[in-house]
């Protein structure tokens, strides 16, 4: 059997570096390299796409690629400890072997966004898929208008990608970062907003004119962010989000991740609000 075209057999990769994103340790970023350079060359990802990560003996999970293809190596995956595979991944160390196959799914329609202002709205680990497209647009900034990043988490300690949030992105021309947290513990240092992301978004109130809003986060946050964006007169076509359902094959056969006649693994994960409204509401 010709394994290079066999989508279900992963390629071997090595974890080169692991960083803890949150102080509770529930989110880690894994820096990963394919063992065979030619397999890296075949892996052509765009922002928003995902990969199936294997922990052999435990299973596979579909994980968004958090690094931008404009900064190709190593590949980065920011992963929250949730189920069997992600828990085992969190126990792994530098040098451990994993399997990767992909990239899968569609990507953020970055070409359609040329010349537009971009508003990224993220919550918690939802910044992981957004980070790939944020860095992509920053690296091709000449193609886009202003970039606003509105991001929140439960507490200051739970913010992911702190270096970029505090040191890198705010210092770039035409890029604004707005941060909020649900609550601050006594004694914790925090001089930015306190409150939920949707309300904070309405306070900032970015203009819908020539803009695209891209949101990713916990389902409950997305639900209220969508309502806020509608209130702020963003059209359904101007709003982009991502969906996630249980997946086992990643390529449209195993039958788990359908919403109506769409499979999130191949037709998603990126959908416009217009597309989502046309789907059966079952996700």
């Amino acid at each position, binding site marked *: *059997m*010709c*394994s290079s*075209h*066999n*989508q*279900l*057999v*992963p*390629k*071997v990769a090595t974890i080169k570096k692991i960083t803890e994103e949150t102080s509770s340790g529930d989110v880690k970023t894994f820096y990963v390299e394919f063992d065979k350079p030619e397999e890296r060359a075949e892996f052509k990802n765009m922002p928003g796409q995902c990969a199936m990560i*294997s*922990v*052999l*003996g*435990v*299973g*596979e*999970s579909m994980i968004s690629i958090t690094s931008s293809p404009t900064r190709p190596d190593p590949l980065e995956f920011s992963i929250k400890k*949730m*189920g*069997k*595979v*992600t828990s085992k991944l969190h126990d792994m160390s530098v*040098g*451990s*072997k994993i*399997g990767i196959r992909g990239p899968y799914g569609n990507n953020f329609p970055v070409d359609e966004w040329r010349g537009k202002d971009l508003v990224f709205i993220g919550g918690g680990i939802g910044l992981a898929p957004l980070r790939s497209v944020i860095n992509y647009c920053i690296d091709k900034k000449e193609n886009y208008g202003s970039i606003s990043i509105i991001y929140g988490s439960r507490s200051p300690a739970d913010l992911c990608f702190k270096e970029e949030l505090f040191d890198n992105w705010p210092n770039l021309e035409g890029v604004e970062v707005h941060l909020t947290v649900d609550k601050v513990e006594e004694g914790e240092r925090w001089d930015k907003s306190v409150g939920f992301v949707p309300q904070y978004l309405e306070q900032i109130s970015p203009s819908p004119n020539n803009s695209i809003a891209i949101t990713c986060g916990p*389902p409950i946050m997305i639900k209220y962010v969508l309502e806020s964006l509608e209130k702020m007169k963003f059209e359904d076509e101007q709003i982009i989000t991502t969906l*996630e*359902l*249980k997946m*086992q*094959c990643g*390529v*449209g*056969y*195993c*039958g*788990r991740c*359908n919403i*109506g*006649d769409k499979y999130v693994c*191949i037709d998603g994960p990126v959908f416009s609000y217009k597309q989502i409204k046309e789907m*059966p*509401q*079952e*996700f």
Partner: protein
Amino acid sequence: MNKLLRSNVSCLLKKLSEHTEIYASTEEDGVCILAKLDNYEEWTMNYVRTANSVKDVFFPQNEEIMKYKDASSDLKIEAPKPFKERIAFGVRPCDAAAMLLLDDVFLKGEFYDSYYKERREKGTIITIACEKPDQHCFCTSFDLSPGATEGSDIVLYPTEDFFLVVEVTEKGKKLIKDNAELFEDIGAKPEIVDSYKNMRTVLGDVCIPNDLNEKLKGEFDNSYWKKIARRCLGCGNCTFVCPTCHCFAVCDVARGCDGKRARTWDSCKFQDFFLMAGDHNPRPTQIERTRQRFMHKLNYFKEKYDKYQCIGCGRCVEKCPVGVHIADVITHMKEEL
């Protein structure tokens, strides 16, 4: 047109087995199944439908996807060895037609399924037309018939003591040519073939309106789903016996540092099928899962591939312990909408 004597079938199977695996209809404890045959005298025609369908030959219930060695430090991953050529004999026309629906899923998308593709390329389907459809059959609702040739390489039409042989594909033609001594050219005899093709099944008048999928679009919240879900036991029989259902689960089996990854059929009727890490379940009760099964077959699949995902074999009807009948669903929706 060729004929094949019934008494020559064992001989044909034996000869074919020299180079291929033979899956044929055989009887085990009173149940007819399609199974790998070693004794070629054991083939039978004593069935309306085999308990399993020809799907098993190309998409087996359990199969190894790969082996791995030393998961931690020097990981090696190995795909399975090439499969053997295979012939399925005694397939029913509906089941052969179901393969075309599986082809849509496994071969026609952006990614093809290597395991399925290889088995299909190395497989030949020899179908026997149905002499006597039973009360569960409704293939004629899907533009098929007891004599349909869709998905078959060869169709055998039974007469008193021989089969009339219709070669459907090049593959089928070659098989007959390579085994010419067992076949006999008797000139044209199409009227027997026509009589099979014109036969109607008992439930044949469950005519499916062309726009059923369109009508179903707006019926996501129809209370009918709740009504039929109430008696569903969630046993999954309907999905396991279905020749068109393709859902599967992937699981790793570890032995120390080594192990294998396998896939096994799975069912949308099971509670944990859609369950995500973090315990979110978009289809938490049998109501959503019952709706998912019928909407997939009658709406989503049709939207995606322009075909209904059912060929009217009647297995789900025969095997459902609580009488949930896809033809009833179609009739109900047709009348209500």
